[in-house]
């Protein structure tokens, strides 16, 4: 069954005043289908349109009206999310089925982690009960269960802003679990994380995909992670799909043909072994403790 269908989707952003001349088209006639239960990587260098595509899939951005007789559309499980430059009137109901995980986590910093996770249920409960924040005991238990699943139950009462990036991202995954969405879209979920946190986040997403049959689309700019966790990869470049197939086919020569000079950005961490977190430097360029041989810390 088709979970996500994208047909002839294009998006042009108004060129900023004084900006560089050139193509301001972020998405260029994209057509693709993703089946229920797939785990798909969306690959591309920065500026290739990965984030823009994900924001279209969740109805956060509206695409261009159809051009040349083609109408751009996004359908989620057979229902139109947007079509021909218009959002569906049922967009809020459709969004409850599409959880989004953001690069910057997008949790509410001043609320506790548990409150943040509970908010995942807002789309499924009545307006007044949701607005007053009167969550039932069963909902709270479900939220704690989701937190336990991503290994964050101990931090439930801590303010989200006091947690590290990796912890916040796992909290965001718990929020997606509480949302009970059939599809999880993750927009560069590990781009702001250190390798160990990145590994745990990717493990969580892969686990949810395997155990719950949730369709997962995750955008990445490191091919190594795509190869390790996602059987299928869709590569974007300049707003167009340039590759759609098994991720293992993305070897160095293929990437260099697709991306030219940009391929270096995608090949970062290509050394990522099956045991992942080993000799990868930390985000600040400080070698991780394991890399310098200190064990059991």
């Amino acid at each position: 069954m088709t979970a996500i269908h994208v047909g002839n989707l294009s998006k042009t952003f108004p060129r900023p005043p004084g900006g560089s001349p050139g193509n301001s088209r972020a998405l260029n006639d994209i057509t693709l289908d993703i089946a229920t239960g797939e785990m798909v990587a969306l690959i591309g260098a920065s500026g290739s349109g990965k984030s823009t595509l994900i924001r279209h899939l969740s109805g956060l951005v509206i695409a261009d009206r159809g051009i040349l007789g083609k109408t751009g559309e996004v359908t989620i499980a057979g229902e139109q999310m947007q079509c021909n430059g218009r959002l569906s009137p049922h967009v809020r109901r459709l969004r409850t089925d599409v959880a989004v995980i953001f690069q910057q986590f997008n949790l509410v910093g001043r609320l506790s982690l548990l409150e943040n996770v509970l908010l995942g249920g807002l789309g499924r409960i009545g307006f007044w009960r949701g607005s007053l924040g009167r969550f039932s005991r069963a909902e709270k238990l479900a939220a704690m269960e989701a937190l336990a699943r991503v290994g964050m139950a101990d931090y439930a009462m801590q303010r989200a802003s006091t947690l590290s990036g990796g912890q916040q991202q796992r909290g965001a995954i718990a929020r997606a679990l509480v949302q009970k969405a059939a599809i999880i879209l993750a927009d560069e979920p590990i781009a702001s994380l250190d390798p160990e946190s990145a590994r745990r986040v990717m493990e969580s997403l892969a686990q949810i995909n395997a155990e719950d049959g949730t369709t997962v689309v995750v955008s990445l700019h490191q091919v190594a992670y795509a190869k390790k966790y996602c059987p299928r990869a869709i590569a974007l470049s300049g707003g167009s799909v340039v590759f759609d197939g098994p991720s293992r086919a993305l070897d160095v020569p293929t990437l260099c043909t697709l991306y030219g000079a940009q391929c270096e950005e995608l090949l970062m961490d290509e050394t990522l072994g099956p045991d992942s977190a080993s000799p990868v430097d930390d985000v600040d360029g400080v070698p991780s403790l394991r890399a310098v041989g200190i064990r059991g810390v």
Partner: protein
Amino acid sequence: METSPRTSAAVALPAVDGRARTLKLVGWGILGALLIGSWKGAEMRPFDLITYGGNMKVFAQGFFPPDFHNWKMFLEEMLVTLQIAIWGTALAVVAAVPFGILSAENVAPWWVVQPVRRVMDSFRAINEMVFAMLFVVAVGLGPFAGVLALFVHTTGILAKLFSEAVEAVDPRPVEGIRAIGAHPVQEVIFGVIPQVLPLWISFALYRFESNVRSATVVGLVGAGGIGVVLWEDIRGFNYAETAAVMLIIVVTVTLLDLFSQRLRKLFT
């Protein structure tokens, strides 16, 4: 012997920036012209202070010693003044929350933002004393007129401050809530309000401080509180009592300012 000529050659005064100097002179010139031009309109007569110095001395002596005979009544009226400020501020906070959100450009569409902002502008533009006079006519003499005057004026101010805080929020958590499928009102409740709450509380406390000061003067037009006593004493040439009332106002306002400042620090 060799060093002194060398240093004098190496060190030189930086070139004088002629344009900056001219601009500075022009600036001072404008300020001077403004002051001189306003002299006549303001009927400035500084020498009167010396000419009538004797009278003033007599007048000032009337304030001493302050007459605290009616201190019980003064304190009761000061309490009423505080109560006017409390209710005026509380009602204004309640009204400023929706108005503040509706006049934030990142939340409401322009055709809501613009009219709401213009209404709030007019609330702010008119001083609370003017509102007090109007409400005295509408609801009669007494503290309630003062409460309404402070309420309307403070709503205008807080709505602006609140909306500025809302316009500065981080949009990402709000988008996170939107992506869940939440109602737009819930985006505000859970995405915006937690972010602005500390600032809002601080603004509300600051306005409470100002409102205590304002509440002491709305009495001058009959809108209740210690201002009424002050006005009666001044009109009755009862300067010893006027001095006592003014001292009580100074002490109360100072204490409240200190207390409220402490409280505000807790939230920011």
